[in-house]
């Protein structure tokens, strides 16, 4: 049994079936990609797993326990982190505060501890600060820890979002188009970073991406979605050769990218 198991998942918005018969499994240490044309239902799948939507049918299980239709903050506390297609940082807060917010769920000192500034409060604050700075150092953002997040360059904002998600100690990380808007150099660095994250933090990474070179290079397994249905799964080589996939999606890109 895998850490994350999805079976027969589907969701309907009124008359529109956005996703149907979706199956998926992921374990820590794996790197799997989800690809498909725009509007295929990829982000919808992510939203279902992270509790933003409630499924119409099907099951989503983490550690064997159902997490379908649970509140998003609860799902994160259970071990699933994510980043967003359009970067959702806390713009007005500092880089450090963004990552510190990720440690919020590990707080054990209470409300009165906060008000009365107990030693418990200070201990945890210092510890979280230390962990946050370490994380920022890993992502080469520590020198700008006190910058406002919205003043970071785009590529660094993406990395900060990933760092923030990692601060929540997830076992599964969902990355939604992390390479969007990056130039080839940045994409190469991102590839390294994603591999590093998988190995160093021992998480299972589920990736939505449009850049085929990146996807083919780093994924162990690829699931292809089109119009809400899975049309192919397998290794990068298998998927590349699959005629249905080529027809639906890869056809022109294979020669272009």
């Amino acid at each position, binding site marked *: 049994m895998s850490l994350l198991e999805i079976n027969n998942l589907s969701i309907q918005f009124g008359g529109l079936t956005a996703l149907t018969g979706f199956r998926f499994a992921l374990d820590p240490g794996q790197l799997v990609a989800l690809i498909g044309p725009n509007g295929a239902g990829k982000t919808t799948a992510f939203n279902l797993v992270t509790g933003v939507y409630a499924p119409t049918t099907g099951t989503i299980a983490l550690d064997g326990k159902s997490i379908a239709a649970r509140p998003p903050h609860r799902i994160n506390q259970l071990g699933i*982190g994510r980043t967003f297609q359009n970067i*959702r940082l806390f713009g007005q807060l500092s880089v450090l505060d963004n990552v510190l917010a990720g*440690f919020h769920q590990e707080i054990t000192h209470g409300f009165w501890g906060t*008000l009365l500034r107990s030693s418990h409060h200070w201990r945890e*604050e210092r510890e979280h*600060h230390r962990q946050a700075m370490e994380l920022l150092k890993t992502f080469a953002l520590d020198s700008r820890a*006190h910058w406002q997040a919205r003043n970071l360059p785009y590529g660094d904002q993406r990395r900060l979002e990933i760092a923030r998600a990692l601060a929540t100690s997830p076992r599964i990380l969902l990355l939604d188009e992390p390479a969007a808007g990056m130039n080839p150099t940045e994409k190469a660095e991102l590839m390294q970073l994603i591999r590093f994250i998988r190995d160093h933090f021992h998480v299972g990474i589920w990736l939505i991406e449009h850049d085929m070179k990146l996807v083919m290079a780093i994924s162990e397994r690829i699931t292809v979605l089109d119009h809400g249905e899975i049309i192919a799964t397998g290794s990068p080589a298998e998927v590349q050769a699959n005629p249905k996939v080529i027809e639906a999606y890869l056809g022109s890109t294979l020669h272009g990218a």
Partner: protein
Amino acid sequence: MKRSDQLLPGPAHGSPWASFWPLLLLLLLWPIGSFLQNAALFDPYFARIICLVGLNITLAVSLQLINGISGQFSLGHAGFMAVGAYMAAYPAHAMLATDAKDAHLRLLTNPLAPLLFYLDIAVVGLCVVGICWLLFGVFRLLRRLGNWAMAVGLLVVAIWLLTDMAMGSGQDGAPPPYLVWSSLNYWLHALFDALLARGLPMTHQVAAMLPGAVADVLKGPVAYFLTCLVLLIGGGLCAAGAGLLIGIPVLRLRGDYLAIATLGFAEIIAVLINNSQPLGGALGLSDIPRFAGFGWIYGVAILTTIAVWRLTHSARGRAMLAVREDEVAASAIGIDPAHSRIMAFVVGAFFAGVAGALFAHFEGYITPRHFQFMRSIELVVMVTLAGAGSLSGTILAAIVLTVMPELLRSFSEWRMVIYSLLLIIMMLLRPEGLLGGRELIPRRWRGDADVSA
């Protein structure tokens, strides 16, 4: 990048005692001000202004927590103030009424009496909440059948309630048991009166049983201080309870919708008070012992500022700011937005209630007209002028906006015109607030971590 540095409400990492200098200034001036006021060295008009400023500081800072830091839009802050004021003034007033009417302040020597009152409130309040919870459960069951079922259910309950109350009103003694709502109303009142009526004599009995030495200590300035404290905290807790009651149902509202809901709540409070005979109705409560002077008012203002500061510059404060910035992202990293919002609401309401209680014991009489919508608006203007999230800005704005109308008094009929013009100009020139969301002290003194940044 320097400018952006200072906009960050980062957590205080260094010295636990780091506070900011307007606060330090207040801490230094507080004993001096108390002494001077007691020595009656100030012109009473001037002293009054200073006290009003202190009240407004507490109110504005508590509203800053709700509006600025947790990013909600509350237009009903005066409602919380009213709850605190009446819930503190009523027992004080009642204690005066039962004891003789001389030397008001000497009568505030029984801390147990208001304590019992607040226990009564808690008991009755829990009963009412329990009934609401049951009703709510029924409605949720109905909703399974469909929204129409719930609407019909609501209509049925409303009609039932109204006819029941109409039939049961104007009767002496207990209404017949088939009139469920009237009976409920009657028995809850009876419970409240019984507890209260037994309260005072009981505390006198208890006091009589205490050994001599303890009784002496409890009589003097200690008892006086404790009684005042119980009244203030009791008023604050009642307002906090109201904050919880209003905060939970409006959780899913955002922006303007939340504003209207809070506005409605404040109006409900005003109407309830207006129609409540024991609370004085439209004529209000008078003969409230006036114990709240410079010392109490500024003591509370300082404590409020410290509390809100500490809450903001902590992990919980970061969570509130995160929810303010982006709720979806905040919940994606494990922060429960509902929890943060409620916490801000309840804490803000508590301090508003304490400020209201202080106000009641400063003026000596209160009417619903003291807590109308305009009061809420004045407070929202202070918070807006301050800039979202800036506590020293809030203090400055409270001072400026309380003093300015007074300074303009010499302009008689042009006063409000000039005041309003000044507000417009300030908003045009500096929409981000007086301090633009920043604080007045350098990062180093705030005790933040990385000074080298």
